[in-house]
Structures are given as structure tokens and as C-alpha cells.
């Protein structure tokens, strides 16, 4: 666990301005999420020093990389970082092994290098070392690029939409590796994406970017369920819960998982008891009742407290923010239902969860 990252930047390109003041966690995956043009990639490039913000302060692991007030700007090649570009950006004149060695040759011998063999196995590329980069598939290239960045044992790993240029199948090939990195690495990862699916699957923390500003930033579930962020009103709005497998009910083809505030039944999962999982709960799959529903086909009924209410500005939808045993949950219900039930902040209710997806 390293110290939090402090990142303050102001950059003015006339048509585009970046202005952020962030404190990012020193471990886990922090996703910088936003539409194209929101400034998420610019922010990442400022952190890498590939772009220089006119005004900036950047501190990582007690090292100051930029402090414009004192005229400090460490050039990129002197920053202990790993960077994965949208296109793998491998050197075409070197083999896979040559690419992996490129950075290693340039860091001081005595410094702590990562266990390369372990990284190669983790990313499943140990059989590709002698290949030329042009002989690799898109997914393989991106895995080599990730290994190349990790080999230096950097203090922070920066990833700029590493899956955006890949098709669905290749994405599915790499996502498990990224999830695994997540459990294996103890360095902070800053991950830029515009994909809600990647947010749900990878993020521990979330920064939502819009027009060069950070609209919201914080732990994943908390940030996803914030009502002041347009994401909560999106048709695809969802929250993500960390759960643990506790029981398989083979007769019913169900698996029981537990979370901080109780347990849920899910369609059977092929995972051992004790396996940690993430589940995604879409707001549209959550309904609300004032009393315990006695006759219902829905298995997952949980007590909850309403912590926030919002309208979708003109549509017929109410967005309800709830707390279930310490975890945040969003529900999309009709505004009529909200009025009929007379929902208020602070009310104790029951939520029925119609479906979940496992990430």
C-alpha cells in the first residue's frame, strides 16, 4: 500500500481546458471514465509527463514529478511509471523479447526489477518471446505491451484505453488477465476507458470526467450511485458489489454469495466456495416494496434504506439511491410508483433484485 497520488493540473488549449484537483488511491485500479473529449486521456498524459500542464502539481509515492510553482518538471523518461497505449505501440524493429528488455536495460542494475517470468506467465506470453511483433495478434500485442510496462516494476501503471482498439473476442481474452493483475499487483493502476463494462469489471475507484473536469471521484459503488452524476440516470446505470461464494444449491442450479449486508442467490457459478467475485446490479432490475413481499417469485429481497431520490428531468423515471448493509444500490422505478409509495429519504424499504450479472 503506497501513499495516495496527488494530481492537480490546469491546462488551456483554448477550445479545451483541463482543470482537476484529485487525490487518487495508492493501490488498486482507479478508472478514469468519460466520453471522448472529456479530458481523461489528457489527464493521463499529464501524469506521464507526455504533455505538460502549464499549472500542475503531481506527487506519487512521496516523489514530486511536477510542481509548476517551483519550476519542477521531471521528464517522462525519469518517472518511475509504466504506460500502456491504446495501440500496443511495440517497437517493430525488435522482437517480443527485445521489446521486453528495452526498458530493463535502461534502469539501474541495483533497482528492484519485477519478476519477469512471473509477469510472462500471468499474461500468457512466455511462448512468444522470439516472435517478431508483426506476427502477433492484436490481443497478444497488447499483452506484450502490458508486460513491457510492468517489467520495470514501476510505481504507477498508466493504461490508456488498452482494449479500445480490440474486437469483442480479443477484449474477452485480455480482461481476465487484467482482473488477475488486479489481485497480483500492489502498485496503483490508472486506467482510462469510456466502457461501462470495463468500469464494472476492473475498477476499485472511479473518477468521472466531463469537459476537462472531474465530476466525481471515489470508491466504485459510492461513485456509481451518486445522483449528481449523469451516469446514475443512464439506462445502463448499475452498481457493482464485491461478494464471496458461500454455497452451491445444485438441485436448484443456484449459488449463494454473501456480502457485507446479507446473502444473494445467483444462477449457478462454476467457482469454489470462498472465491471472491464482483456482481453488477442494473438499476432497472431493482424494484422497491414498503413491506416484505410474501408472495413473490423473486428470491433476492433485502432490507434497505433510501439515501437519495432524483428525477430524470422530464422522463417518467425516478432514480432511487439506497444503502443495503453498507453497500450502495441504485433503483430505477417509474415516477408514478415513487409518488404512490410516497418514497422519502431515510425510509426503510425492501428491494427486490430481479437479476444480476457476474463480472
Amino acid at each position: 500500500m503506497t501513499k495516495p497520488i496527488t494530481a492537480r493540473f490546469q491546462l488551456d488549449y483554448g477550445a479545451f481546458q483541463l482543470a482537476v484537483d484529485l487525490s487518487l488511491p495508492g493501490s488498486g485500479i482507479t478508472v478514469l471514465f468519460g466520453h471522448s473529449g472529456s479530458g481523461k486521456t489528457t489527464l493521463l498524459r499529464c501524469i506521464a509527463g507526455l504533455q505538460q500542464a502549464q499549472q500542475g502539481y503531481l506527487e506519487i509515492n512521496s516523489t514530486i514529478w511536477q510542481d509548476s510553482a517551483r519550476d519542477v518538471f521531471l521528464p517522462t523518461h525519469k518517472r518511475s511509471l509504466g504506460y500502456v497505449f491504446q495501440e500496443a505501440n511495440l517497437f517493430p524493429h525488435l522482437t517480443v523479447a527485445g521489446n521486453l528488455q528495452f526498458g530493463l536495460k535502461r534502469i539501474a542494475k541495483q533497482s528492484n526489477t519485477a519478476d519477469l517470468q512471473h509477469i510472462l506467465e500471468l499474461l500468457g506470453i512466455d511462448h512468444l518471446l522470439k516472435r517478431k511483433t508483426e506476427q502477433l495478434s492484436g490481443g497478444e500485442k497488447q499483452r506484450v505491451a502490458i508486460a513491457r510496462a510492468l517489467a520495470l516494476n514501476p510505481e504507477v501503471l498508466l493504461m490508456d484505453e488498452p482494449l479500445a482498439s480490440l474486437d469483442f473476442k480479443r477484449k474477452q481474452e485480455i480482461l481476465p488477465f487484467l482482473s488477475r493483475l488486479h489481485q497480483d499487483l500492489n502498485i496503483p493502476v490508472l486506467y482510462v476507458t469510456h466502457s461501462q463494462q470495463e468500469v464494472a469489471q476492473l475498477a476499485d475507484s472511479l473518477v468521472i470526467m466531463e469537459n476537462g473536469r472531474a465530476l466525481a471521484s471515489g470508491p466504485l459503488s459510492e461513485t456509481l450511485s451518486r445522483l449528481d452524476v449523469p451516469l446514475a440516470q443512464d439506462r445502463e446505470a448499475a452498481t457493482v458489489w464485491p461478494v464471496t461464494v458461500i454455497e452451491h444449491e445444485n438441485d436448484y442450479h443456484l449459488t449463494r454469495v454473501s456480502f457485507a449486508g446479507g446473502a444473494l442467490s445467483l444462477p449457478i457459478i462454476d467457482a469454489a466456495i470462498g472465491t471472491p467475485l464482483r456482481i453488477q446490479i442494473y438499476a432497472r432490475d431493482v424494484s422497491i416494496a414498503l413491506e416484505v413481499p410474501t408472495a413473490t417469485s423473486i428470491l433476492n429481497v433485502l432490507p434497505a434504506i433510501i439515501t437519495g431520490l432524483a428525477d430524470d428531468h422530464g422522463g417518467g423515471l425516478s432514480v432511487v439511491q439506497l444503502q443495503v448493509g453498507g453497500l450502495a444500490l441504485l433503483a430505477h422505478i417509474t415516477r408514478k410508483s415513487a409518488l404512490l409509495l410516497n418514497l422519502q429519504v431515510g425510509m426503510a424499504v425492501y428491494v427486490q433484485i430481479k437479476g444480476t450479472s457476474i463480472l
Partner: protein
Amino acid sequence: MLTSADLDTLLLTFKVASISTGLMLLFGTPLAWWLARTRSAWKGFINAVVALPLVLPPTVLGFYLLVLMGPAGVIGQFTSWLGIGTLPFTFAGLVVASVLYSMPFVVQPLQAAFTTIGEQPLEAAATLRASPLDTFFSVVMPLAKPGFLTATILGFTHTVGEFGVVLMVGGNIPDRTRVVSVQIYNHVEAMEYSDAHWLAGILLVFSFAVLLVLYTVLKTQPVAHN
């Protein structure tokens, strides 16, 4: 057959071309790198100056060099002050003129190669701890290898083939400034057509062979003469 005087001119020609090509690569590489990367307002001006020998009659360039390097010229006064005399009608003067005359043939392919490489490999190298100079040698040069080959071959052959500039700046002094193209002219003037044939044939075969290698083996695109 070739006379010993002919052989001397061949030797001198290759000496001038080799030294000139070396100097052109030395000065042309940073110049082409700057031109490929700069956003300076001077870029267009410098590009035009470098390309000037492509369109200027060689005698014009030769004339100005002769004047500038002569005893009354700025360069001539500077070289005199340095104690090395004036450059016209010397081997060194010939090399200086050749470098200026053939420079676009070195700078333009390099500039094109550097531009094609783009920003991405440079950024990747920076994130892998390579300083800008390190990146130039370990990433840019290997990636621009076809550009360097084209630049070397075109710079060399173009210097071998020059005539007008040589005559103006170097004159026709055996063993010092008399290169093959001038010797061919001498033979023709003296009606020694069979001697002229030998030398002209050698240049033709040499030039064609080199270009053949360039365009077939290396598969280089012909350089655009803009």
C-alpha cells in the same frame, strides 16, 4: 582503355563523393530531424533553402559559391583569417560545394522517414526510461534505416554525377579537382570519343546498378523532387 589520368579522376571522384556523403549525413541528419519535428515558423524557409539546389542551375550555385569563397567573399575572408587560404580550386572547396549541392538528396529522404515514424514510438521509448538522445539512436535510427540507405545512395551518386558546380568552384586541376564528369568533358573537347565512352559507360553502369538496388532490393519509392 582507361589511362592513368582517367583512373586518377575516378579515384578523386569517389573520394569527393565519400567524404561529402559522410558530411551530408553528419549535418543532414540533425537538420532533417529538426525539419521533421519543428513547428517553427522558419520550417518553410529552411525547407526552401535546402531544396534550392534541386531547381537552381548548378552553375548559379557554383557562381555564388565562387564569389563567396573567393578572396573578396565573406567565407573567403573568414578562411583566410583562419590561415587556410581560400577554398575555390581546392579539394576542400570541392567538398563544400558538393555538400551544399547534394544536400536535398540526403535531407529529404531522411525528413520523410522521420516524419513517417511519428510521435508514438518516441513516447513509448520515453515511458521505458530512454532519454531523447538514447531514443534517437535506439529507436529512430533503426526505424529510419530505409531512409538512411536512400539518403546515402542518392547523396553519393548525385555527388558523383555533378558537373556544373565542380567546374565553377573546383575548376579542372588534375589530382585535386578534376573529377570524372569533367574528365569526360575534356575527352569530348579533345575529340577523344573512345576515352569518353569508357568513363561515361562506367558512370552509367554504376549509377544504374545503384538505383536498381535501391528500387528493387530495398523497394524504396522514388524521391519526390518538389
